[in-house]
């Protein structure tokens, strides 16, 4: 028979208080080496006290207290390794391209959906120009009718919430929504891809129809290839998430989702810096006529080619390969 509860608490409490104190200090980051050793010893003692409490004092406040204390100490002692610059570099050198190649089928499917959307939008507008009234937002129609370029982002997906302010016409939102709506069994991603495709296709077709094709080309040539690739990759990641939900294989859905989700998140995170770079191009090169059209076209082609060359070649073979720089 174990000691009565108050006696047990009175005897062991100094250790617990010391451990709690050390944990607070550890969180504040002012621990010395010998104190760290003490922390380890105290944690082991608390763990054995917890085992005792589980056996003899189950369901009491002492049991709950020890659970919590050990939980905090466990968290402090078994911290995940800190992400360092080296691991970030390694991620871009081979992890990200490899993850993309491993899931090439999803990216291809995403590209197919996006192209399908573009074709649909374009065909509808070319066959029936009045269809543009349904597909193209009014402000764009007005500016096209006035034969002038709106220098706003061309892609837009409007999530029906005003979290990121009313005008959700930016690439980051498109990227995130395209990816994250994969959680709706992948249907959200399919919709976002088709929607963006239709949008882009119909706007492009309307511009061509109104004789503004060159102007449109002039605006999207420089950043278009890479930006659309990034959307397609995000779509692929969203489809992966959806697939994990629909067909988890031998795992429970939650586990399948966590596992595939980690892989999918890699794709999205990998795209982020490229998205930032291409936003710079979009902001400074694309608008206006400082650069002639053919320069923009060449730049767009070159950037797109480099991007895909990197994705398809980096990190092939051994981890020692330097990839394409």
């Amino acid at each position, binding site marked *: 028979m174990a000691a009565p*509860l108050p006696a047990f608490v*009175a005897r062991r*409490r100094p250790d617990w208080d010391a451990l709690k104190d050390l944990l607070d200090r550890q969180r504040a980051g002012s621990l010395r080496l010998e104190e760290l050793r003490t922390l380890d010893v105290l944690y082991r003692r608390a763990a054995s006290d917890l085992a005792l409490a589980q056996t003899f004092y189950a369901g009491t406040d002492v049991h709950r207290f020890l659970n919590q204390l050990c*939980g905090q100490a*466990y968290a402090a002692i078994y*911290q995940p390794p800190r992400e360092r610059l080296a691991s970030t570099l390694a991620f871009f050198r081979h992890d990200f391209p490899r993850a993309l190649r491993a899931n090439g089928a999803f990216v291809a499917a995403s590209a197919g959906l996006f192209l399908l959307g573009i074709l649909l939008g374009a065909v509808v507008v070319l066959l029936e120009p009045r269809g543009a009234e349904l597909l193209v937002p009014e402000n764009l129609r007005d500016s096209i009718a006035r034969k002038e370029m709106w220098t706003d982002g061309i892609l837009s997906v409007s999530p029906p919430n005003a*979290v*990121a302010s009313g005008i959700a016409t930016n690439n980051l*939102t498109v990227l995130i929504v395209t990816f994250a709506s994969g959680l709706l069994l992948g249907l959200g991603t399919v919709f976002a891809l088709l929607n963006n495709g239709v949008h882009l296709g119909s706007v492009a077709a309307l511009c061509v129809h109104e004789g503004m094709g060159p102007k449109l080309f002039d605006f999207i040539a420089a950043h278009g290839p890479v930006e659309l690739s990034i959307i397609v990759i995000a779509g692929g990641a969203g489809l992966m998430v959806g697939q994990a939900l629909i067909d988890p294989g031998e795992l429970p859905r939650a586990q399948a989702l966590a596992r595939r989700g980690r892989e999918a998140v890699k794709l999205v995170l990998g795209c982020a810096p490229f998205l930032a770079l291409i936003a710079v191009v979009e902001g400074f090169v694309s608008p206006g006529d400082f650069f002639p059209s053919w320069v923009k076209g060449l730049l767009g082609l070159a950037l797109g080619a480099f991007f895909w060359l990197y994705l398809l070649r980096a990190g092939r073979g051994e981890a020692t390969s330097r990839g394409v720089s």
Partner: protein
Amino acid sequence: MDSAASPSLDVATPERVSLSLPVAGIGYRCLAYLADLCLLFLFWIVAYFTFTLMVSDVLGFLKGLSGFTRTLMVVGVFATQWVYWTLAEVLMGGQTPGKRLVGIRVVRVDGSPVGVLESAVRNLVRLVDSLPFVYAIGILSVLLTRQHQRLGDILAGTLLVREERIDLDKYTTPATEASAVPAPAGSVRLASEDLELILSFLTRAPGLEPAARTRLGTKLVERYGGLDEAERAAVLASPATIEAFLRARVQTER
């Protein structure tokens, strides 16, 4: 005493002791979120007013921006929130100011602390969780999953655990004014459940209705006292003596 049915996160530590941490449900989440929302709101108010100090005609200024700068502003607004949540969670060990106030913490599903990646992911997915309005998707997900996770949590492999403030003093407070009360016999050993029962009564007694306070106290004395008639009458004289006796009864278990 909370119900045994509330979900918990079970962790098997390398020390061969299994922890079970209580999972935070929707109420705690909402409270913490509201607290954080107040902070963010405060930040935006301050930012807005400093902005108006620099620019007199705000609407005109916004209209005059080019599309690209406007895009940058929107991204900036979103990024500010995202950075707030993520940085707070990473730097404060899985807590934001609001979460600390309420006493909940984000951990990985294996109980280890969150890293930058998990936190970044779960706060990116906030966007989807908050669709179509007032976090409807997130709330549904919290209500339907066993561990009360929203979509962002599921994707990042995290959950929220509760941290209760448990007061151990009640086990060790010495009995006061024990002189006026007959000493408890202590003939019967109390099991830990009985101790817990008496202690939780003593903790809550000051907040009870007088009638209920006396009634419950009497019941406990009769059950654990082991007294004869005269002593019982002395102990049951007033709530104060009842509680003093019970406290002494617990203390004799040393």
